[in-house]
């Protein structure tokens, strides 16, 4: 076909397009895939990310089922021990240590949901220029 659609055909196409797009928009934008607290329990490692460097924060995180948060450095020594709470609605980890509070959150990509971590060491609100680069954490064990 090189010419335009007939009015009737085009009218049908427009209606089908509009209805289809509205339905698709509804389905796509529905909230889904929010992890529960039980699902985020586990051990995580921070893998190296291109160009972002290692950063000063510990790279091994444990979210224990009893609500204990532990961050270990590369030697395995405990650097931070605090309590954690998962905000399912926001997909956000609350930690009693101010440096780690609001730092780990749920992010989605084409392969599903992951936890990711803001790597700048400053507490969130002390960092006005918004150094909010993040790395996706690698889950080691549930």
């Amino acid at each position, binding site marked *: *076909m*090189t*010419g*335009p*659609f007939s009015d009737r055909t*085009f009218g049908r*196409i*427009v209606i089908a*397009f*509009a209805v289809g*797009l*509205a339905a*698709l*928009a509804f389905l*796509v*934008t529905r909230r889904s*895939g929010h992890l529960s607290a039980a699902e985020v329990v586990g051990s995580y490692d921070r893998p190296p*990310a*291109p*160009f*972002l*460097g290692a950063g000063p924060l510990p790279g091994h995180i444990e979210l224990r089922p009893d609500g204990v948060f532990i961050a270990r450095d590369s030697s395995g020594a405990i650097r931070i021990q605090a309590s954690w709470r998962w905000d399912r609605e*926001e*997909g*956000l980890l609350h930690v009693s240590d101010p440096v780690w*509070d*609001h730092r780990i*959150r*749920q*992010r*989605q*990509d*084409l392969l599903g949901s992951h936890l990711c971590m803001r790597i700048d060491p400053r507490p*969130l*609100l002390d960092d*006005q*220029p*918004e*150094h*909010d*680069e*993040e790395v996706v954490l690698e889950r080691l064990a549930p």
Partner: protein
Amino acid sequence: MKVAGNMAVVQQRQVALLSVLVFLFMLILAFVPAWRSVQSISWGASVDFHRDAGFVRAILEGHSGEDPVTLGERSWYTPLLSWIEALLVRITGIPVDALIIQAGPFVNLLAPIAFFLMTWSLLGPLRAVMTTAIYLFFFIGQEPSWAVPTYSPRLMAVITMQALFYMDIILARAAFRNRRAWRFVVLGSLAGLTFLGHAAPALLIVLIIVVDTLRQLIPAARARDRRLMGTTVRNALLAGAAFVLAALPLLTTLVGTYGMHVVNRSGFLYTYYALTLSDGRIFLYHNVSWTMALALAGGWLVWMRFRPASHDVLRDWVVLSAVMWAYAYVVAVLDRPGGIELPGTVPSFHYYFYLKAALIVLAGIAVARLWELSVQRLAPRPIDPWTDGRSVVAVLLLVVAACSLQYPVYASRRDLFSLRNRDLAFSERTDEQAAARWIQAHLAWNDVVLCDQELSIWPMLGTARKMVATASTMSNPYRDWQALHAAQRGMLHALTDGGDISATLNAHHVTHLLIRNGDAAGMPHASRWFPREVFRNAAYIVRTRAGGPP
């Protein structure tokens, strides 16, 4: 011939209608996560929001045009967004701080709409759909939306006013194509309005107008075409006059009051951390991407392969924003003790923002070319991919599928989360918000607060109450910030170490002291100069000079 012409018109209308439908679909997909990101937020964490709240309160309290931070000074910041916000507060009754957050997803819809219209005028409807999909869902990646153009819930001049620049581009292209005088009047007026909105896009569009004028004037002069020369000069003068008239509310202050004599250069020296040499790896992290590769391919197509004259404006846009970005960066690098003070304009990242907007258009051109090549290869016979019914429907469905697949990534991207995460953390500071409300409600317009730099940003900046000094980047660029800051530090030290600060307090018309509750014990002389405590909660104490030494 006439039947064929009518068919072409019908075909164009059909393509246009389908393109608009897909654009609306994309707009819904972009709007929903932005709208969700501001739900239940009534106070923004960003210093920009605090600064803007101060300007809006100044307007609402009948002090439009006055600097809400420094006593006796004029408002120096581009006012258009504050005017819009003040109007919306009047209409809706929503408190200032909440409105600045809640109105963002709605007001900022103007940006993608203007971007779509601009790319439509440059490239046609289908390519506009493709390019707008890149603008909305793909180019932003994990950078903040104040550094990279896209639709965003943040109601900030740098983001909101991109809409005016895209409209400027449409008007500039139309004006230089048919050279009618009224078009230049409209173009100059919108450029002036853009200046009231944000300086960076206004400077870029003025430079584009100058370059395009020279592009017409120089060949006309060489050919001794007096008529074309006269028309070109007349149009440039009309555009310039319209610009000045439209920008007059701000120009009267910048030129009339301050003579454009910038003393505090901190504002335009600010450099987005990803653009500094020390954080060059972060620049690479954000810019080594397939969308950037597409943009470079689009640039190659436009300038090395096809060179369409219709893309002169786009070429000017790319070159001028890159040149201005480099210049602004050089200004910042050279401005150090013993260095060189070049005239500055705005922070370099504002030009990076507009360079990236042009790169998005180039990426769209590259994607469109890929589609053309694919159709040529796959179609059994030669067809025009931009008018053939099956090709049109196929490309639109592909765009719909790509945006839908990208949605989970887009909806949980750093920019949206970062904004909401900060606002949520900020909303936990209820004592501090109570202090800000009290200061705003109980201090008079001309009262002046002495506080340290951190407190001058929060809780002070959004209250529209005067301070001795605030952060240099938020301070009036036409006042000597170093002197104000030195006076502020001197008076605060005296509250700890003692000393007579009566003259300095009087010189700066200081009426109140704001300190952290935890700092009070370390300021034994505070009660001498500020004898009466008028506010206290878990976060802050406010004292007044009333009843103290003169």
